[in-house]
């Protein structure tokens, strides 16, 4: 089993130890030499899987995760669902004991299942229970390939403890298939040409490129497509200084054609839902606007969990990987570029350049509001953090970036939402540690804007970062509440006309205030705070960066404005 995992090129295996994979664990660290993969000690299975999620978003491939049967998988399940909804490859090896004669005690019975992977089958791409080492090898390579084929996702390989612990004669040679990844699905030429025709004929084509970019090459392609069309890009990994970067999305109201590329919720991209007593939806686009889509999402869809979002019916709908399809789309657009269209397109580019500059200036003006307020404003926090990052090779591995930051590398953010694919809270802390691990070999300065509620789910990941010397500056966005939930309860109280004074009951994290610096210190992480006064922020962040530059994690607890 260790040889199989080595053959797949895993750098790390993240796990909270469990007896159902004790033999594999021991073999990894002794027979395998605890290198490629190296064992990462995790304090929660959810942390292990989310670390894998964050790592894969940066590295472009999974790390291995081991989990104990039943209870371990139950702990891991939310993070697996996040990875599934986020289309992120996670490779999970799950311990289990099928043979009742091998169950030693009461605990083994509690921690065994007839069909161990069943619990997460609704939100994994594939699973298997190999009955032999030959099958384990084949299934592991198959699982890896399935996880890495767009739409990517988590896979589970059950490693039965009987199979793990049975001796293998020295002379036995188990064939391990060679890993060959699948070529991602690309759009067929007729549909691509039709999309190009509609884009080139449009007066204002708008690109919503949510998950379209995975690599540096993908980011270059997106820039080339946008520049060919002189079309604004409202979402996705696109250089923020580029005049066609329009992340506020307002430009969508002017669109006559909208191209969604790997948009998780295309309906939501062109509608807004009004959450009042009588909920209503309003279209953000004009009647008759042509919707186009390139996305692999419907190539793999399941019924139970509803993350497939509201139905849309694009005029042209290509079931393919966007990054793989972009070269053909760019060429098709260029072929349609006539002298007449060139002038109109260039004029559109001039208008969008002006709009981009206006929006940036508005954002700069808005950043001055509450500049000296206490608790610290978001914009002040962003500006202070940016000052330390701007001249470095940096990456934001948790939280959302500021509109004023210069983002021009695909690895500088974690994706459009920056949170777990399914919005499962508790993701940012472990995913940021996993992503920082992937960045470590490149020497990048990693920063995470870490919300308080998220960290409290499994703060043990701080210890994992300290133990494995993962350099990461964690800047707490400590607003001392689950503010989104405060607002939901407040909304209901308003709706019921009962007064809103009690909306903070059950939604705030005060009395006592949580001392995140003390928590971090207890986990072996350098820390400072709480900091409420903006004037104290710069020096504390600088000291944190100094620690990170020495290869260690650091945490600066900043008490912030709500949202």
């Amino acid at each position: 089993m260790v040889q199989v995992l080595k053959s797949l090129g895993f750098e790390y295996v993240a796990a909270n130890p469990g007896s159902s994979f004790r033999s594999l664990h021991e073999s990894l660290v002794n027979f395998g030499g605890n290198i490629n993969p190296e064992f990462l000690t995790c304090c929660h299975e959810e942390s292990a899987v989310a670390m894998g999620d964050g790592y894969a978003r940066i590295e472009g491939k999974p790390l291995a995760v081991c989990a104990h049967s039943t209870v371990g998988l139950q702990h891991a399940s939310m993070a697996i669902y996040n990875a599934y909804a986020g289309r992120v490859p996670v490779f999970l090896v799950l311990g289990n004991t099928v043979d009742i004669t091998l169950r030693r005690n009461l605990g083994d019975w509690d921690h065994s299942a007839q069909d161990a992977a069943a619990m997460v089958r609704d939100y994994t791409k594939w699973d298997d229970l190999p009955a032999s080492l030959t099958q384990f090898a084949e299934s592991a390579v198959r699982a890896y390939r399935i996880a890495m084929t767009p739409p990517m996702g988590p896979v589970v390989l059950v490693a039965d403890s009987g199979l793990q612990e049975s001796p293998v004669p020295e002379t036995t040679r188990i064939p391990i298939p060679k890993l060959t990844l699948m070529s991602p699905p690309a759009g067929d030429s007729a549909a691509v040409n039709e999309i190009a025709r509609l884009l080139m004929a449009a007066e204002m084509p708008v690109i919503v490129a949510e998950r379209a970019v995975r690599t540096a090459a993908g980011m270059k392609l997106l820039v080339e497509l946008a520049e060919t069309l002189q079309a604004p890009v409202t979402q996705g990994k696109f250089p923020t200084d580029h005049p066609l970067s329009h992340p506020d999305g307002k430009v969508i109201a002017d669109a006559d054609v909208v191209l969604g590329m790997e948009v998780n919720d295309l309906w939501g991209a062109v509608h807004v839902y009004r959450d009042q007593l009588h909920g209503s939806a309003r279209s953000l686009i004009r009647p008759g606007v042509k919707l186009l889509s390139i996305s692999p999402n419907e190539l793999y869809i399941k019924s139970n969990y509803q993350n497939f979002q509201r139905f849309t019916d694009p005029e042209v709908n290509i079931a393919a990987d966007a990054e793989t399809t972009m070269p053909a789309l760019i060429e098709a657009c260029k072929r349609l570029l006539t002298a007449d269209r060139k002038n109109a397109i260039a004029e559109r580019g001039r208008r969008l350049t002006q709009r981009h500059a206006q929006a940036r200036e508005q954002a700069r003006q808005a950043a001055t509001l509450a500049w000296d307020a206490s608790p610290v404003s978001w914009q002040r926090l962003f500006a202070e953090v940016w000052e330390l990052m701007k001249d470095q090779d940096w990456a934001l591995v948790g939280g959302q970036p500021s509109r004023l930051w210069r983002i021009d590398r695909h690895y500088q953010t974690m994706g459009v939402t920056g949170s777990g694919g399914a919005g499962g809270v508790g993701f940012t802390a472990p995913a940021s540690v996993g992503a920082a691990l992937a960045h470590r070999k490149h020497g990048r300065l990693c920063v995470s804007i870490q919300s308080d509620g998220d960290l409290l789910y499994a703060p043990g990941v701080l210890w994992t970062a300290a133990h494995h010397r993962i350099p990461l500056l964690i800047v707490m966005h400590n607003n001392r509440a689950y503010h989104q939930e405060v607002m939901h309860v407040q909304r209901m109280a308003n709706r019921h006309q009962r007064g809103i004074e009690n909306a903070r009951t059950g939604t705030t994290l005060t009395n006592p205030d949580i001392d995140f610096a003390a928590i971090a210190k207890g986990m072996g992480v350098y820390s400072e705070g709480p900091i409420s006064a903006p004037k104290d922020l710069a020096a504390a962040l600088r000291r944190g960066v100094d620690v990170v530059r020495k290869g260690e994690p650091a945490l600066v607890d900043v008490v912030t404005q709500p949202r």
Partner: protein
Amino acid sequence: MRVSLIFIAAAVLWAQTRAPERSKQQTTRKDAAAPAGDAAKGKKLFTATGCYECHGYVGQGGTAGPRIAPDPIPFPAFSAYLRHPANQMPPYTEKVASNQDLADIYAYLKTIPQPPSPDSIPLLKK
């Protein structure tokens, strides 16, 4: 009624999108339209009634709500919007926030000073 609500919604949308402005003349005109309010009480209400959740402690706005200070929109539009919001904000009936509460909150918003110019802040200089 429908026309006036549309007007109010438009006024609020305008307020959401504009950059901070520094017009003394405008402030004076708004003051004339606002009822008497207790700014200190309004500051407490701003927190107690949860305004800060979306708009920030000094009305600066954020990811969940627009900027509402400094230079709040005229009081009649402010009051009407609270009672009959057009977008995501939940309505605040008189049972939840009295007219006097609104006047106090408005008085607090009027005390919020103008922000510094971005060019005077080294971190925000171009």
